[in-house]
């Protein structure tokens, strides 16, 4: 009985950590620009696809991973330069719609640059499951947990301990004031897209050995990541992690103890329920407007 529960929990943690990593990217861009970047899932896909195809063509894994991160960052910077920046004086809603368009464009481009097949990466530390009290866990899931942990610590350090990180936070709070004290607002926006693309790529690379990837992989990861970010409170990195884990574990427990046919519905009911009582998510700042 306990072994089964533990297995459900591991299953949920594995999916949850994947959703959480995807959710983190949404949080960062929202933090610095109030924009929800619907192309976030595509950064994940680009990271996964480029690392998988590079490894398949014989490039050593560490080099392939670094290149994949650079490629995704380049895509993030290009998105900001060519699509977001020209529209920077428009409404947030307009920019959000631009990101939706960009995501469709990136999916199409991926279809042409790569192909429509699924690709996989070898697991980082082998495929032998680790047995824990009758349940099993793949080593790759531990990689996903560890990377999520490292990323969240690194982000905390970046936003709270570096000048540039603080400048980014400042810009999100008050753009005009930030500009007045000498923050290069344009540079901040560019950096936030580069950073979230990098984050997406990292996520894409560590989850590809588990979920595989293809040109459309970003849709599901983007959607679940968005749910995670909203549940945790948009703009809060830690919240995205907690939100992702809650969604993942709820799905796994629901399919274990209730019925797998309703697992998605149950996850969404939980999200709706939380948002009904806490409209800003679990850890979101309350939206008070000072007059």
């Amino acid at each position, binding site marked *: 009985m306990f072994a089964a529960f533990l297995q*459900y929990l*591991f299953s949920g943690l594995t999916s949850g950590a994947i959703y959480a990593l995807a959710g983190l990217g949404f949080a960062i861009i929202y933090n610095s620009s109030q924009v929800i970047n619907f192309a976030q899932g595509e950064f994940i896909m680009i990271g996964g696809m480029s690392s998988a195809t590079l490894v398949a063509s014989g490039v050593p894994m560490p080099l392939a991973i670094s290149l994949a991160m650079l490629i995704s960052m380049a895509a993030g910077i290009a998105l900001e330069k060519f699509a977001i920046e020209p529209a920077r004086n428009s409404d947030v809603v307009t920019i959000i719609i631009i990101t939706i368009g960009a995501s469709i464009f990136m999916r199409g481009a991926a279809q042409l640059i790569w192909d429509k*097949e*699924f690709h*996989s990466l070898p697991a980082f530390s082998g495929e032998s499951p680790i047995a824990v009290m009758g349940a099993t866990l793949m080593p790759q899931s531990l990689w996903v947990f560890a990377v999520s942990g490292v990323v969240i610590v690194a982000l905390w350090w970046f936003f709270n301990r570096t000048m540039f990180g603080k400048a980014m936070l400042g810009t999100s709070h008050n753009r005009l004031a930030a500009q007045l004290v000498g923050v290069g607002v344009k540079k901040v926006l560019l950096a936030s897209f580069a950073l979230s693309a990098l984050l997406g790529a990292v996520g894409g690379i560590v989850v590809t050995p588990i*979920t595989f990837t293809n040109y459309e992989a970003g849709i599901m990861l983007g959607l679940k990541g968005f749910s995670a970010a909203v549940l945790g409170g948009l703009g809060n990195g830690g919240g995205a992690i907690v939100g992702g884990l809650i969604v993942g574990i709820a799905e796994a427990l629901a399919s274990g103890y209730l019925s*797998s046919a309703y697992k998605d519905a149950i996850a969404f009911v939980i999200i709706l329920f939380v948002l009904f009582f806490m409209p800003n998510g679990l850890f979101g700042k309350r939206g008070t407007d000072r007059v």
Partner: protein
Amino acid sequence: MRNLVKLGVVTVVAAGVCAVAGVASAAEPIKIGAFLSATGPASFLGEPEKKTLEMYVAKLNKDGGVLGRKVELVVYDDGGAGDKASTFAKRLIESDKVDLIIGGSTTGTTMAAIPLIERAQIPFISLAGAVVIVEPVKKWVFKTPHTDRMAAEKVFSDMKKKGISKIALISEDAGFGKSGHDQSVAVVKNYGIEIVADEVYSPKDPDVTAQLTKIKNAPGVQAVFNFGFGQGPAIVTKNYKQLSMPMPLYQSHGVASKDYIRLAGEASEGVRLPAAGLVVPDQLAATDPQKPVVTAFKKEYEAAFKSDVSTFAGHAYDGLQIALVAIARAGSVDKAKVRDEIEKTSGYVGTGGLVSMSPTDHMGLSPAAFHMVEIRKGDWVLSD
């Protein structure tokens, strides 16, 4: 291939007769229309289908065409969307004025176009799987691929042979997996097999160990049957190994491509599934009538496109051949005559199996069209 040669001969003779009689009508090409899902989520079906049609039509024209006339192929890409499929079917009928339509890569796009096609009374050969396309029989609608029900029946009869009576079903809760699940539930009783656990997963779930754990703990499960395609079955297979589940794992014909083995890796060892002869051409018995057909098709396809042949490409090949043979026999492109000739298709040896249609059977494949294969050391091994 042999059919094509035969066709060429018929054509040359027919052309000669026409020339002698002085009624040369060689100018007008025969128009075959197709709407396929060459992009979008079903592109793994539509893309090889499109390539196959284009390749064989070009080849046919080089050899002189049919009835002394060239064949013109008009292909539209519906992106897997039903509304676009019906728009393109309309365009094929009304503005391109085609003589015959091949297509509908998916059951959804096929069903969306059927009402228009029935109204326009034009022969139509679908490349999609589900039984609903030809059951009940529709006058102008035919199809080439195996149905999901046949796949389920093949798997259950293999289980029965091995003395398995209690199984668990795990299927994708959308499209192909859902339809396969419903067909499996409908026919399983005929084999004296009981489904004791019935689990589903979403097409893009990253992990299904929760569902598999539930199956593992269900009492008396002797085998597990997974219905789905894309990455889902590969994830099921990997998770299956992770939980070291002891009973045999069966997959559907949806995974009969090398991609599945590549993705699932070592975990796919020992998995059994029903597949068309096209997957294992070298292992078919020398007496198997399908052997020369599938060997030639595989060779030509792989030489032309440098990628592994899939059964989906084979469906398009079969559809085109059946259409061309019927047109040649009808001696014209008169729609009613061509339709009647398609219905009279008998003993056609295709990539999917032997096809003999009748007024009550517009698919014409026998259950023998499927072979049971097992995955050993990363390759298919025939294991009927």
